[in-house]
């Protein structure tokens, strides 16, 4: 139950009085703490004609002790949401003010963001570490449109976020031309294709129920963002004295678990397989998922290929065979995919030449098993569901929740002779793991002293500085040839947060800040290897990190370009045999070069660099870590090789 407060005036009375005198005044700052007796003898603002024709009210009621937004804060607090990320907007000013004053700006605490895309991506990064949603607020129009790309990333990446969009629904209550432009009939429409659920509560009880429901839906695998459109008047109107406002109880929905028949069949195939392989995508949702996965892998002595959409499997575990993915998939007789985003793509190669062609790279007789909650949720418009995979045992369930029963079923089916065969397999795999690590190190030695600095050298220098700390890599590794995961020892769930999900650029910097915000209370050093093109989408998040004292070490992977796109244009030029030296047009950000250290400094973030000599890199990182250990963000600009 939310606390009830006494209210000086019922809603109906308030509206009656307000209608008489407040047509103009409503636009003035409403949140004064003065008693409700503001009388106007000499009108500062000319009265509207409507007002002139009516007798003035005896006492105009201009304040209220408690409004709908206070109750909304009670509801939000009941969900134990730590932060609310937002760029301020008038359509949720009521909620904003209630959060900071009525709610005491604690759980949730307001995080000032410089762009709605930042707000959402921060919540995205936070959820990757903390496993639960933050609240994001945005204008229902201009804000949600800004937020859209980041929401799509979170949707593709199956990350829970609770989003509230403000709106002024009643056309006769829109204050100004601005508010008309910021009002919308169906505010959720632009995002509906890539949120799991949305609603438009029209009363406070409706708000309470829908918010708790939204949270629950977001947190049920497959997890995704949810959206509530909340009317400005519902926020700002006083709460009636007699309102029976109740907050429904939140219960968590158990994740869907694979059916026992399919699980037994999967176990049978895996136990009998001579060359099985396990591919993990978003397999581990929580730290427990990593443990379950290790238990299954060790029961079967199965090689694990970690696509690292989540931190699934320790990189130095002898069964981690990610570096041998190609040969293992090609030779496998049974392939198990756990929350693999694109299973078809894992067993096919695609050739991007004049004619686009693809080929099965797995054995045609290989049996495949997939476990994924993605099979339980489909939308039509956006195509992130990938190509149709032909699978033998398709289990529509959450992999993490299914793993313990699969491991049990495997153990039941293993006899002594099978176990000893599996032990031999482990010896072979452990040797192959060591060889692959050595191959990676040998490859890293090339361009070791190069200027700009090689991405391998960057990874190695950084590892030397953080490996004795309690660290967390809060950025992706794909665009730097995956060097960190090839060279570092990732062991804990929070050591890595995976990628954006929808491959939408601009995610990196704010997601890193959000993950670092989650890591802060655990005292971890959050490390962000930051691509330059990505940072330029929304560099304002550096200010957010400084303002909120978010300890985040940002190491720029500054290759001065949108390098992926540079390669795309190169491919087109080659295809036409023309201008093969012109692909840099429109794809590079080198003239003028951007000084990221100064950019950081301008926002109150410690900034160092640009560093182009590899010998200077280690000391620069060490200096920056000292700043981060003081609880502040720091950035080191490093000029790097493209990939």
């Amino acid at each position, binding site marked *: 139950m939310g606390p009830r407060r006494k209210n000086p005036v019922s809603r109906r009375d308030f509206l009656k009085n307000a209608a008489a005198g407040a047509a103009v005044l409503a636009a003035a700052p409403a949140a004064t703490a003065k008693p409700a007796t503001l009388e106007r003898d000499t009108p500062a603002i000319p009265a509207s004609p409507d007002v002139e024709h009516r007798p003035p009210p005896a006492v105009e009621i201009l304040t209220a002790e408690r409004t709908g937004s206070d109750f909304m804060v009670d509801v939000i607090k009941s969900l134990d949401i730590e932060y609310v990320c937002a760029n301020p907007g008038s359509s949720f000013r009521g909620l904003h003010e209630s959060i900071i004053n009525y709610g005491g700006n604690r759980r949730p605490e307001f995080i000032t963001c410089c762009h709605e895309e930042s707000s959402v991506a921060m919540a995205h990064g936070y959820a990757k570490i903390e496993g639960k949603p933050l609240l994001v607020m945005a204008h229902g129009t201009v804000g949600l449109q800004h937020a859209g790309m980041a929401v799509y990333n979170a949707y593709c990446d199956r990350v829970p976020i609770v989003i509230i969009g403000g709106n002024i629904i009643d056309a006769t209550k829109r204050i100004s031309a601005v508010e008309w432009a910021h009002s919308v009939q169906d505010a959720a429409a632009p995002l509906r294709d890539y949120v799991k659920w949305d609603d438009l509560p029209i009363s406070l009880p409706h708000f309470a129920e829908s918010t708790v429901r939204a949270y629950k839906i977001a947190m049920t695998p497959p997890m995704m963002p949810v959206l509530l459109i909340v009317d400005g008047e519902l926020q700002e109107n006083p709460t009636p004295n007699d309102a029976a406002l109740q907050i429904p109880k939140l219960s968590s929905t158990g994740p869907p678990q694979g059916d026992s028949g399919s699980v037994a069949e999967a176990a049978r195939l895996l136990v009998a397989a001579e060359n099985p392989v396990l591919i993990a995508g978003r397999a581990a949702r929580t730290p427990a998922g990593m443990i379950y996965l290790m238990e299954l892998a060790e029961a079967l002595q199965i090689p694990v*290929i970690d696509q690292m959409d989540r931190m699934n499997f320790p990189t130095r575990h002898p069964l981690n065979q990610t570096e*041998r*993915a*190609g*040969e293992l*998939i*090609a030779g496998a007789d049974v392939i198990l995919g756990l929350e693999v985003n*694109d299973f078809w*793509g*894992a067993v096919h*190669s*695609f*050739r*991007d*030449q004049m004619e686009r062609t693809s*080929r099965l*790279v797995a054995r045609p007789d290989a049996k495949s098993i997939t476990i994924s909650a993605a099979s339980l949720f489909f939308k039509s418009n956006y195509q992130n569901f990938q190509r149709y995979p032909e699978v033998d045992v398709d289990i529509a369930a959450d992999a993490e929740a299914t793993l313990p029963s699969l491991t049990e079923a495997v153990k039941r089916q293993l006899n002594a002779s099978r176990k000893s065969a599996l032990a031999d397999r482990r010896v072979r795999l452990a040797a192959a793991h060591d060889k692959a690590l050595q191959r990676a*190190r*040998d*490859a*890293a*030695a*090339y*361009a*070791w002293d*190069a200027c700009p600095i*090689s*991405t*391998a*050298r960057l990874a*190695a*220098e950084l590892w030397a500085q953080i490996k004795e700390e309690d660290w967390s890599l809060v950025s992706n590794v*794909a*665009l730097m*040839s*995956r060097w960190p995961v*090839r*060279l570092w020892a990732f062991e804990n769930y929070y050591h890595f947060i995976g990628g954006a999900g*929808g*491959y*939408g*650029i601009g995610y990196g910097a704010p997601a890193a800040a959000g993950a670092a915000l989650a890591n802060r209370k655990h005292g971890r050093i959050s490390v962000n290897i930051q691509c330059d*093109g990505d940072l330029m989408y929304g560099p304002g998040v550096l200010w957010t990190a400084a303002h909120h004292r978010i300890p985040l070490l940002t190491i720029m992977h500054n290759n001065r370009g*949108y*390098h*992926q796109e540079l*390669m*795309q244009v*190169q*491919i087109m*030029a*080659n*295809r036409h*045999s023309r201008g*093969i*030296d012109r*692909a840099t047009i429109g794809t590079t950000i080198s003239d003028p070069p951007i000084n990221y250290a100064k950019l950081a400094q301008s926002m109150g973030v410690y900034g160092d660099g640009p560093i182009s000599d590899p010998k200077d890199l280690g000391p620069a990182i060490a200096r920056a870590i000292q700043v981060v250990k003081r609880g502040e963000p720091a950035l080191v600009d490093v000029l790097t*090789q*493209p*990939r």
Partner: protein
Amino acid sequence: MSSLNRVNESNMKASFLVILAVVTILAPFATANAQTPSGAQNGKKVFEKLGCSRCHGSAGEGMPQTGNGPPKIAATHLSLREFVGSVRDPKGQMPPFGAKQVSDAELSDVYAFLQSIASQPKLELPSSANSDNGKRFYTSFGCYECHGLEGQGSAQTGGARLGPPQIPFSGFAAYARQPTGQMPPYTSKAISDAQLADIYAFLRSLPRASPAKEIPLLNQ
């Protein structure tokens, strides 16, 4: 609006599949030649289509000057049986070629072709090749984008390590013209033979990396 799109994903996948690509992308051609003209002639075709020429050079000259690069296999001392055995079950770096990819009969044609080549096939890199020019072309023509500024290669782009070269010039140039994998083709209209030779000369001028075992940061 920039975003990582389909091709980039397939590039990322390519990183998983680099090793594999060498073996399998060439496979569909394996059974192409039903009517054998003459053994050696057909052998030359198979040799090129399977990509043997990429590593061993168009004349099987290999890279005898580098330690563990592809050996010279023209006018080989191996018997046909030993030859087939080396292809089916290579000793080290070389990807294996199974019977599905190339038949014993085809390999015997390849053997005939290689035996028909003079015992000292000459390296085809012209002496005029200029490494300074090559360094410029390597950058301006975009090789660095996928292969790194020092030819170190990348697991993300799938671009092989090119510097210093592990394959002879003939295989290098032929691959740039007609790649069998993801690499975009560089036709003679886009880049001349002389320019490719300059690029090769540049890559050859690059030092070999120190062994990783001697770099402390790579042993942590």
